């Protein structure tokens, strides 16, 4: 059990990154529109985030430097500031959407409008950050988020024809009725969702919060190799259930209730109960991840004391940033702007900012002054280089595709 609990940082990071409110809906939407024809992107994204999260975790364990320190040390103050502004904006939009996402999950359980829940959900997120120890927090929300495995069970119970599923995953085509640009737009969004920078900000800062050392490199690898593929499997399961049930009926997905529908049909009330717990835990986890990340990266840029490992009075500016982000985020979603649209746009913006985060990680993971003999091996460097190119391409394509396709419509 102790060994299993050691990987909850990876699980929470991945759940927050792969199945937060925007991704829950985006995965379901992609399944209902494209079937299994975009599943390969999730696979590519999982490998990409594993490669870079492993490097970031290793750097954090060996040199005790979290990712945003590296960004500033290698890009310099000006480019790091540009990254800080872009990443903070994405973080903030995502945080606002997650605060609403928790409320949407509560609405499904209670049928009380999500807008009424928002003041309580944002207060609850803040209380957890204020009072709960980092390890306790990651265990509760990481493990509770696992109940989203109901999606995988639901997919299996829906009894897909495995042969044809494998065929369409391995031979993707652009479905008739969808343009190539739209297909590519969703591909970039899914890739951006898998690689959102706040995952490595959170993961590496979490590693520092837990005081990882060189002895924890195996824990790092286990976290990465269990957490992120698990997040990917959950994403694919959601896509699969909607591809099997909603696609044949021509249903397009735009809310959380529809995301659950195929699994509810397959598994009934018990399945619904698991999904509701999972929705709650995943959106809550993502809210914690983004709220903390906003404090982490601003503090790490300026060199302020940050973290939950010290008393709040000892990291006052860090806690002030988190508090202000939460208040502003709650105010944004209380305007009844569609939280799901908010995250869809933030995913595209995040694809744009990816290289500014992943490039410095790759450079420093090769720097013997930081790594003391734990620099990248050949495999890590080969994969890192390939994914750096993919990240650059996705970043360059993100905005043109969004304009051409009117954000995938």
């Amino acid at each position, binding site marked *: 059990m102790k060994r299993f609990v050691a990987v909850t940082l990876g699980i929470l990071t991945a759940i927050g990154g792969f199945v937060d409110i925007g991704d829950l809906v985006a995965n379901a939407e992609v399944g209902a529109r494209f079937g299994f024809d975009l599943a390969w992107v999730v696979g590519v994204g999982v490998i990409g985030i594993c490669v870079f999260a492993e490097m970031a975790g290793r750097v954090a364990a060996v040199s005790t430097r979290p990712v945003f320190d590296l960004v500033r040390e*290698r*890009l*310099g103050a000006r480019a790091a500031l540009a990254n800080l502004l872009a990443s903070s904006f994405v973080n903030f939009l995502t945080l606002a959407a997650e605060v609403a996402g928790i409320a949407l999950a509560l609405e499904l359980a209670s049928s009380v409008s999500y807008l009424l829940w928002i003041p309580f959900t944002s207060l609850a997120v803040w209380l957890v950050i204020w009072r709960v120890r980092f390890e306790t927090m990651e265990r509760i929300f990481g493990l509770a988020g696992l109940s989203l495995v109901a999606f995988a069970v639901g997919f299996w119970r829906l009894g897909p024809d495995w042969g044809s599923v494998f065929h369409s995953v391995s031979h993707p085509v652009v479905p008739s009725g969808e343009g190539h640009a739209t297909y590519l737009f969703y591909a970039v969004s899914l890739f951006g969702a898998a690689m959102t920078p706040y995952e490595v900000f959170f993961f590496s800062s979490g590693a520092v919060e837990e005081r990882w050392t060189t002895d924890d490199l195996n824990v790092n690898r286990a976290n990465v190799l269990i957490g992120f593929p698990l997040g990917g499997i959950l994403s694919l399961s959601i896509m699969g259930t909607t591809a099997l049930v909603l696609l044949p009926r021509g249903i397009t997905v735009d809310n959380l209730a529809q995301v659950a529908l195929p699994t509810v049909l397959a598994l009934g009330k018990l399945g619904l109960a698991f999904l509701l717990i999972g929705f709650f835990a995943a959106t809550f986890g993502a809210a914690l991840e983004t709220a903390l990340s906003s404090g982490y990266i601003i503090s790490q840029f300026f060199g302020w004391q940050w973290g939950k490992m010290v008393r709040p009075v000892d990291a006052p500016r860090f806690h002030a940033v988190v508090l202000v982000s939460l208040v502003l985020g709650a105010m944004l979603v209380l305007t009844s702007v569609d939280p799901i649209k908010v995250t869809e746009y933030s995913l595209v913006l995040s694809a744009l900012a990816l290289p500014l985060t992943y490039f410095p990680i*790759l*450079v420093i993971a*090769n*720097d*013997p*002054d930081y790594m*003391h003999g734990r*620099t*990248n091996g050949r495999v890590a*460097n*080969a994969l*890192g*280089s390939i994914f*750096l190119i993919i990240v650059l391409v996705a970043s360059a394509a993100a905005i043109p595709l969004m304009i051409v396709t009117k954000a995938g419509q």
Partner: protein
Amino acid sequence: MRLSELLHSRVVDAAGNDVGRVHDVRLVQDGPLVGTFGAAFRVEGLIVGPAIAGARLGYRRSGMTGPFLLAAPLRRLHRRVKFVPWDRVAELGRDTISISGSADDLDEPEPLPTA
């Protein structure tokens, strides 16, 4: 004077030929003793080269060899980098630093080791 006033400045030689931009400032620890630190660092010279991105990524040091995709082109670019010893600095302007003599007799900086 601040370090940032030197970084990125343009460097020209006595004949007015362009030498490049200041990539970095090399320090050596042989100044007067200060507090608990020991000998202070003093400026040894300027590392000057073509205005390229990536001058700050650390590929000037001998131990930085990966990944190939970055290391190969950056190490090649760093071969065109020159070292200007401080006694060659003739005038510090706002954005331009003039050096005495010709740029042709400048050597490459000695590569620093990594840990």
